[in-house]
Structure formats: C-alpha cells, structure tokens
C-alpha cells in the first residue's frame, strides 16, 4: 500500500547534497536529505462552495476523510495518483494550486460507483469527481476532456431526437477529438462484425446511420429540456462568479490597452 501523502512532497523540494562534509563526517548523498519547507498562501476559500453548487457536488461537506473511496476506487488501482479522498480534502481546505497539479486526471473517473458503495457518509464521491471535473473546465483550468465532449455529443442527440444511434455518436466523437476514424483495432472490430452478419442486418444498420432513430412526438419534451438546461447553465455561471470574472478580465484588458 503506497503512502499517498508522499505525493504532498514535490520532488523539486527534496534537497540532497552530492558532496557534503560536516565537522569531518561525510554526509554525502541521502544522508543529507532535507525537505524544503513550503508555504501555501493561495487558498481559495470559495472552492468548496463553488463545487457544491454544481450538480453532484452537494454532499462534499459530509466527508470525514476515512479513505474508503480511494481504497475501493477502480482507477486508483491502475494509477495511484488518482485519489478521490485527497482531492476532497484539498477542495475543502481550499488548496487550489495543489488540486491543479492533478487537473489532467480527475476526469478519468469511470463512474463505477465503487466509492459511493463504500462511503459511510453518503458523499457520493463519484458525483463529486464529475462536479470537480466540470469545475476545472468551467474555470478554464483544463480544456474540455474527451469524456465531456462525448457527453455533450451524446446529450445533444438525445435532446434533439429522444434517442441515440451509436454509429453516429462515434463518428462525431472521433471527428471532434481529432482522432482518425480508422483506428486499427476498430477495423478489426468491424471485420469481426462483417464476418458474421447477414446482408439484411448490414442494410438495417447502414440505414440506421442514415436515418437516425427518433422518438415521435418528441418536440414538446425537447423544448422543455432546452429551456431547463439553459436555466441551469446560467445558474452555474452565477454560482462560480464566471460572468464577473469575464467582466473583470475585460476591464483589465481595456485598462491595459489604454496605458
């Protein structure tokens, strides 16, 4: 079991003298190791509240740091840096700069809910991971992850038509993430399918890609959902103070230009 708190010590803060003699005693190498002290001054006291305002973040305040989530976590098992318990700690104490060190892996949560199953405090860490990943994107700390792009494309199609056709979602996803549709493993997959499928089935699937499936009489639901989503987005922007941030940046830009 690795000790995760070790990750708090940044490698650049570990000092070792190659050649050092103190009062005639050779203390070269790891004998002379010391850790440079580190002072955190950039607390973001609003961070917990901001994440709690996003869907899924509601129960972050309940966490008592038992670590059951990290212990059960699927992604943690293949990448020890992935540590929900620790991130919840950083968020609640406002250590934004520390959290940002892991900003590129937080979105990798696979929503398996092993953490939710294990958590004794009903924090729903899975949802907190989603809220945190969203927060990073909304604040501009990270570009939209592949996962968010996929969610967007998928949800857009559901909202438009009421249904999903996987081939269509796949194509748009590869296009928007700049990946070639002809991945070698994907070709093997298609070949596997072709080998077994009767022609009629292929025509049916081909047709499905051209004529996307639809739920009829969906327009009422579509309009209702669109209105609701727009409202929620505005609500999240306010909670995170994004509009003010934009305004501030604009005034600063103008001031800069005037100088």
């Amino acid at each position, binding site marked *: 079991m690795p000790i995760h708190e070790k990750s708090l010590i940044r490698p650049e803060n570990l000092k070792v003298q190659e050649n050092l003699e103190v009062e005639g005693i050779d203390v070269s190498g790891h004998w002379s190791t010391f850790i440079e002290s580190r002072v955190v001054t950039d607390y973001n006291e609003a961070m917990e509240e901001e994440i709690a305002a996003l*869907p899924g973040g509601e129960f972050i305040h309940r966490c008592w740091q038992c670590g059951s989530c990290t212990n059960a976590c*699927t*992604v943690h098992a*293949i990448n020890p840096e992935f540590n929900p318990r620790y991130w919840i700690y950083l968020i609640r104490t406002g250590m934004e700069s520390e959290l940002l060190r892991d900003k590129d892996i937080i979105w*990798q949560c*696979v*929503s*398996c*809910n*092993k953490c*939710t*199953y294990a958590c004794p405090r009903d924090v729903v860490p899975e*949802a907190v991971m*989603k809220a945190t990943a*969203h927060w990073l994107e909304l604040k501009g700390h990270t570009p939209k*992850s*592949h*996962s*968010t*792009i*996929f*969610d967007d494309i*998928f*949800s857009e199609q*559901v909202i438009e038509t*009421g*249904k*999903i*056709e*996987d*081939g269509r979602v*796949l194509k748009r*996803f590869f296009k928007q*993430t700049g990946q070639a549709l002809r991945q*070698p*493993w994907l070709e*093997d*997959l298609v070949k*596997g*399918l072709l*080998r*077994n*499928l*009767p022609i009629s*089935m292929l025509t049916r*699937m081909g047709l*499905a890609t051209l004529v996307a*499936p639809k*739920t*009829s*009489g969906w327009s*009422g*639901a579509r*309009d*209702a*959902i669109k*209105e*609701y*989503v727009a409202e*929620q987005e505005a609500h999240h922007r306010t909670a995170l103070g994004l509009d003010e941030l934009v305004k501030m940046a604009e005034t600063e830009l103008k001031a800069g230009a005037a100088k």
Partner: protein
Amino acid sequence: MSDKKTESKNEKYREVAYYPGCALEGSGHAYNRSTKALGKKLGLKLKEVDNWNCCGAMEVKNIDPKLQTYLSSRVMSIAANKMKMDVVMAPCNGCYHNLKKAEYDLKNDEKSKQVVDRLSKKAGHETYQAGQVETIHALDWVKDTIGEEGLKERVKNSLAGIKIANYYGCMYTRPRHIFPEKDSGPGSESTSRPHFMDDLLDAAGAENVDFPLKTACCGGAHTLSDSDTSTRLVANILQTAEAAGAEVIATECPTCHSGLEMHQIRANRTLGIKTNVKIIYFTQLLGMAMGLKPKEVGLHENVSDSFDFVKQKGLA
C-alpha cells in the same frame, strides 16, 4: 405450459412492459434478439414501451442529473399511464440502473420531483409518480417466473461441461441504495456477490467458476474517451476469468458486452495481451440451452466469433 407449482412464483412478471433502450437497437442487437427469443420460448410476454426515449445512459447525468431523471421517468410514465402496465423490464444494466435511480429520486428528493413535474407538463404527458411501476432486470424476469426448477425441466441442450465466469459489472448493483429489494434476506440478490445469473446458468447445466471480478468495472463509461484505461481494466477481467478456468464470460449488459469484445481486440493490438475466453450474453446461453439455434439468439451479431465453440460444445 407445464407444472404450475414450480413456476407461479411471480405471475406479475409473465407479461411486462419491455424497454430495450438504444443500445439494444444498435451495438447490442444480439441481446435484444436473444431476450425476445428466450421470452417466446419460455412463454413470457413482452410489450415494448410505446414510443420510448433514451434513458440518458452514462452521459446525460454529467450534463444534469435531474434531466436524466426526467428522461427515465418519461419511459415509466408511458408504461404506467398509457399502457397500464405494472412492471417494466429493462435488460440493459444502464437503463435498468437509471430507471431505478429515477424511482429512488422521485420518492426521496423534492427537487427532482419538481423538475420532472415541470418538464412532463411542458412536454405534454402525465408526470410519473414514484411507485406506479416496478422496474426489473431480465435476470429477475427469468428467475422469478420460470426459475431454476422450470429451466431444468426445459433444458434441451445442457450447458454441461461449459465453464462460465458470470460478469455483472457496475450498474446492476451500485449504488446499493437504489436497489431496495437487493440484500434483503434469503433468496434476494446480493450487491456484493450477485448470483442470479449464476443460478440460472447453473440450472441449465453450466459449471460456474469462482470469479472474483463479478462486479468489477470494465471502464464502459470511457470506452472511447479514455480507451487505454478501459483496455487495461478489460484485460484484467479477461485474464482473471481465464485464470479462474472460464471458457466463457456470460454478460447481462450491452455496454459491458461490447466493451469486453472491443477491448479484447484492443488489448491484443496495443498491450500484446491475447485472451481466448468467449463473450456471450446469458440470454444467448439460456436460449441455446432451451433448444434455440445460435442464429435465433443472434450469435452472428456478436463481434467475437463463438460459432465453432458452441458447435464443439454441442449447442448448435
């Protein structure tokens, strides 16, 4: 219909509203075909939900969880209010999970209720009220109507000599609170060591292996957006199944199933990990055991080729 005493367990499930969901119309069509064929063979009736919509899968909740609740509630509303059905059966773990989650939220969370009511009114259909329908999985459906005894009586081609690892994935058991009927004493499903699929396949003669990763995650949510992670997770599942002696992994979810198939190929390509374990839906296995032909249960619609395997085992 034979012997009443062995199969009157839950008459209510004999005729259910069937919610296939999007995956079963696309990549998971084999599951759709085999579920329908198995139902027909067993004398169980499926009435497809009229004009159903997507439940939101694993994606819409990340845009807004309450939107997902609404999408799932619309399906249940149609089943209850338009079709006057009491039970919705969803074979897909994702659909099953989302309907259960919506049921839980609509029972316990005032805000979710408000959002669903508002969206339903605006969309022009009746608002679903918690408790109007019961959502069940295809496993409950077979187990509570025909049951193990009933299956034993009907076996045409025994699965004897086939070593199976039963893989349930994430959404069938987690999080525990949305499945109040599980972990509720003898005979109920367990969320830590589920066994319904094991029970059914065992009744059809199969030899279930001791598989420690029954509820491990295949990375299905990020199958495409983080393929490397998914490939590693799947490779682990496949290798563990083989190490446990399994020749087949039985599945009960289209996302898990295609995830395993897809990343079995990818693990070979990118990690050099080659596995031969077959990936087959439990409905396909049961169907063949009941005497259906491989094509009737859509074996040709699977990506991985298990024709030779089933022939060799005397199922074709």
